[in-house]
């Protein structure tokens, strides 16, 4: 539904509605000429974001510069004049804005030129969703795969392929399905949960804002509807509280407030917290706010900017992280880290060099102790290297001068992301995602998984007298684990059993491991804390691994609320034979689509 104001309507009602809009930030990417500008122009146009005379100007421009034989060329909405475009000095992310009756949107429009990695990583760091354009005539390209890989690296949970120019392939379902399955497969391979493909024509607008008649076979939602419905979790209620301290506010001797932006979770007055990295403990006294602004808050959540005061006179300053209290939920503290990096500087990274590392609000010198590898984004192969050049993606080890409080990026973006700054030029040289740190007191929960994954403790392989090939031959399938997760009532179990029946009917060898089943026996000793849920998922994953090694398809249906535990499950089972679907997400594939995805993958 568009957010238009009808003459004579009530302004206050309109504002009241607009005021309640949520925010979704998404990025658009694609190769040159896939139709990205046209798609954005279409979104802005069809949601009434353009002034009438702006539109007039574009109509006139279209006659002169347009690519559509004088007809309205919506690409000009964002591209400006051709002349301007051809000069194209800055190849940079452009930000654009529009709103509907449900949400406000910020588009990070990432150009698909040679600087795509740096641009896309920059855009992606602000976004919850990515739309990648695919020209229906050319299908999934190297560029598409790169986009999916970067989206997954930056932890974007929703990835949508807009299969564009469907009008040029006569809206053929066959062609679309071919592209869809290739795309979905690749997303699963790089660890993106619940990717979606939509057949569109940015030119005619079909399936962008409204459905058309040409793709009756497509039962999913048009792009805008996806954008309006996709879940945006700014603060998952189970996420642990983190607030990097930005500024200490001290107007008088009797007020000492700690200002910052909440990076994760929620905080209430009275909460027990720890100041990291020192580990000092205190309680939150107030979430202070002026009376004109409504007075103190009883609760605040990410990403609000707040001022908190503590019960005690604890030592706390800019750079520290206020963390929730309690064992496994606290931040970790370390000085040595393993990081994924996107290199953004003309000057390559070299091992041994010291940069400034900014994590949260802490900036500290940090030395690159080792370059592990560089990833070939086209093949996903890793290559040994000791340098990273502009637009390279690699993994490094880094050691900071001071200990810092952090979380793995996969778990909490706000305390797991870093930038590296060149000390000579002050350039922003890299974007980094912390994988792990050598936190000495890492909690037992992690130790569980780590021990499990330690190669020395791996079950011996190759003892069975039945070969993998023989198993594939017998069951006519490749083994695969499908994790259906989501809150109770989201339909995981129902879907798990429907999927089982579907696979069964096609003659597959399939096993269901449902949370309830495990709780009844194998995990009878576990309760429902984060740590125990994580352990439950670990046991399920270990069981799945054994079954997978013997050729089965395994469907796991579990609540699995913690992203980190899910990633660990993926690592343990092996991401190439693992996929996960968020059943609480309204846009997740239905059983039929799921069955199609799974059969394509195991067939």
């Amino acid at each position, binding site marked *: 539904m568009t957010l238009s104001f009808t003459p004579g309507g009530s302004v*206050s009602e309109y504002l009241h509605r607009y005021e309640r809009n949520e925010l979704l930030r998404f990025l658009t990417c694609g190769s040159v000429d896939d139709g990205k500008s046209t798609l954005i122009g279409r979104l802005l146009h069809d949601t009434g974001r353009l002034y009438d005379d702006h539109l007039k100007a574009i109509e006139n421009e279209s006659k002169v510069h347009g690519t559509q034989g004088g007809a309205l060329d919506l690409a000009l909405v964002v591209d400006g004049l051709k002349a301007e475009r051809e000069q194209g000095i800055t190849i940079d992310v452009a930000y654009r804005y529009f709103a509907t009756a449900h949400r406000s949107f910020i588009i990070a429009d990432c150009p698909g030129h040679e600087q795509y990695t740096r641009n896309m990583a920059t855009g992606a760091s602000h976004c919850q969703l990515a739309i990648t354009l695919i020209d229906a005539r050319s299908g999934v390209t190297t560029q598409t795969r790169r986009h999916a890989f970067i989206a997954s690296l930056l932890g974007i949970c929703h990835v949508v392929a807009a299969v564009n120019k469907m009008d040029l392939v006569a809206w053929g379902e066959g062609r679309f399905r071919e592209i869809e399955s290739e795309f979905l497969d690749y997303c699963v391979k790089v660890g993106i949960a619940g990717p979606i493909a939509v057949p569109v024509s940015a030119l005619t607008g079909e399936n962008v804002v409204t459905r058309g008649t040409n793709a009756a076979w497509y039962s999913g939602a048009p792009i805008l509807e996806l954008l309006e419905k996709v879940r945006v979790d700014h603060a998952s209620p189970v996420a642990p509280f983190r607030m990097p301290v*930005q500024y200490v*506010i001290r107007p008088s001797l009797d007020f000492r407030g700690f200002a910052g932006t909440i990076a994760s979770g929620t905080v209430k007055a009275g909460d027990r917290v720890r100041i990291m990295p020192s580990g000092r403990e205190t309680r939150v006294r107030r979430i202070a706010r002026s009376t004109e602004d409504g007075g103190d808050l009883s609760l605040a*959540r990410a990403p609000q900017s707040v001022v908190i005061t503590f019960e005690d006179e604890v030592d706390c300053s800019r750079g520290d992280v206020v963390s929730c209290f309690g064992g496994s939920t606290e931040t970790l503290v370390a000085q040595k880290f393993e990081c994924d990096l996107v290199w953004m500087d003309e000057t390559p990274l070299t091992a041994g060099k010291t940069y400034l590392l900014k994590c949260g609000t802490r900036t500290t010198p940090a030395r690159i102790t080792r370059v592990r590898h560089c990833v070939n984004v086209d093949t996903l192969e890793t290559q040994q290297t000791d340098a990273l050049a502009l637009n390279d993606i690699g993994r490094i080890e880094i050691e900071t001068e001071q200990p810092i409080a952090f979380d793995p990026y996969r778990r909490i973006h706000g305390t797991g992301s870093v*930038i590296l700054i060149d000390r000579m030029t002050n350039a922003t040289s890299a974007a980094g995602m912390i994988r792990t740190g050598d936190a000495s007191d890492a909690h037992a929960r992690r130790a569980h998984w780590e021990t499990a994954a330690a190669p020395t403790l791996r079950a011996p392989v190759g003892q069975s007298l039945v070969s993998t090939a023989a198993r594939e031959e017998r069951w006519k399938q490749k083994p695969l684990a499908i994790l259906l997760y989501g809150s109770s009532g989201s339909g995981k179990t129902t879907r798990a059993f429907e999927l089982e029946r579907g696979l069964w009917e096609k003659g597959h060898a399939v096993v269901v491991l449902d949370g309830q089943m495990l709780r009844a026996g194998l995990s009878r000793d576990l309760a429902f804390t984060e740590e125990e849920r994580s352990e439950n998922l670990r046991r399920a994953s270990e069981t799945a691994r054994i079954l997978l090694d013997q050729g089965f398809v395994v469907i796991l249906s579990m609540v699995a609320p913690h992203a980190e535990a899910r990633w660990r499950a993926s690592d343990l089972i092996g991401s190439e034979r693992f996929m996960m679907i968020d059943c609480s997400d309204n846009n997740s594939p239905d059983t039929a689509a799921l069955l199609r995805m799974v059969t394509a993958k195991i067939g």
Partner: protein
Amino acid sequence: MQLTHLDILEAEAIHILRETAASFERPVLMYSIGKDSTVLLHLAMKAFWPAKPPFPLLHVDTTWKFREMIAFRDAAVAKLGVDLRVHINQEGVRQGISPLTHGSKVHTDVMKTQALRQALESGKHDAAIGGARRDEEKSRAKERIFIFRDRNHRWDPKNQRPELWNLYNTRLNEGESIRVFPLSNWTELDVWLYIHRHNLPVVPLYFAKPRPIVERNGMLIMRDDDRFVLKPGEKVVERKVRFRTLGCYPLSGAVESDADTLEKVIEEMLLAHTSERQGRLIDHDQSGSMEEKKREGYF
């Protein structure tokens, strides 16, 4: 309680203001009295409450501002108890620079752009916070939130840094300074909505009222004082007008309007999206505020 888009934009702007205060020696907030500045100032008050913002406000006065703007500025500053510095290019005053005799280009350059430079240099300000938004016009869509300026206050588009997450790289090279735009991600509607939600006072010139108007070069100019000398054939007529953007009075075109309340002003803006009549009547904020910013010497 789900956070709304405005909550998130507010949080982001406050984050940027605090990051600026924490990272620079002598920041300053460029206060131009208009609606964006009003929101910016409110956010600065909020970001450091219960303390006052740890930086002064700077108003570059061209000496040709509407009298109502100056009155509003002084009242706002007195009410909030903030430190305002007013800078006038005295050299320009000595030369008698006027938009009426020297034209808008010279006037803007001397009294705004050069004046701003003087003020930033004499105050040794390493960071200047402004209220520009990316949606103001197409070419701003790629602007950073922290924009670097070289020693000569020049902007090199190729030398801007990528901005990732909310991790701003605020390190300056020798002689460099920075412009900071906390409202980058706000739209015009967001600004009005915020003013409406928080009941923030704005300069009355935004609201329609009968005012003494002279028509010149197709623009409706308000004769704010007698420095504005009438040309032969011109006469002052009382017309009900308001202003969409505020600057020097001889350079600001008024629009005829009945919008005398905030809601009506917002209504007019909303209708400009759809109605041709209104679209013609009301000049674009797009070009209007860009003009304003250019005059302000922001870019």
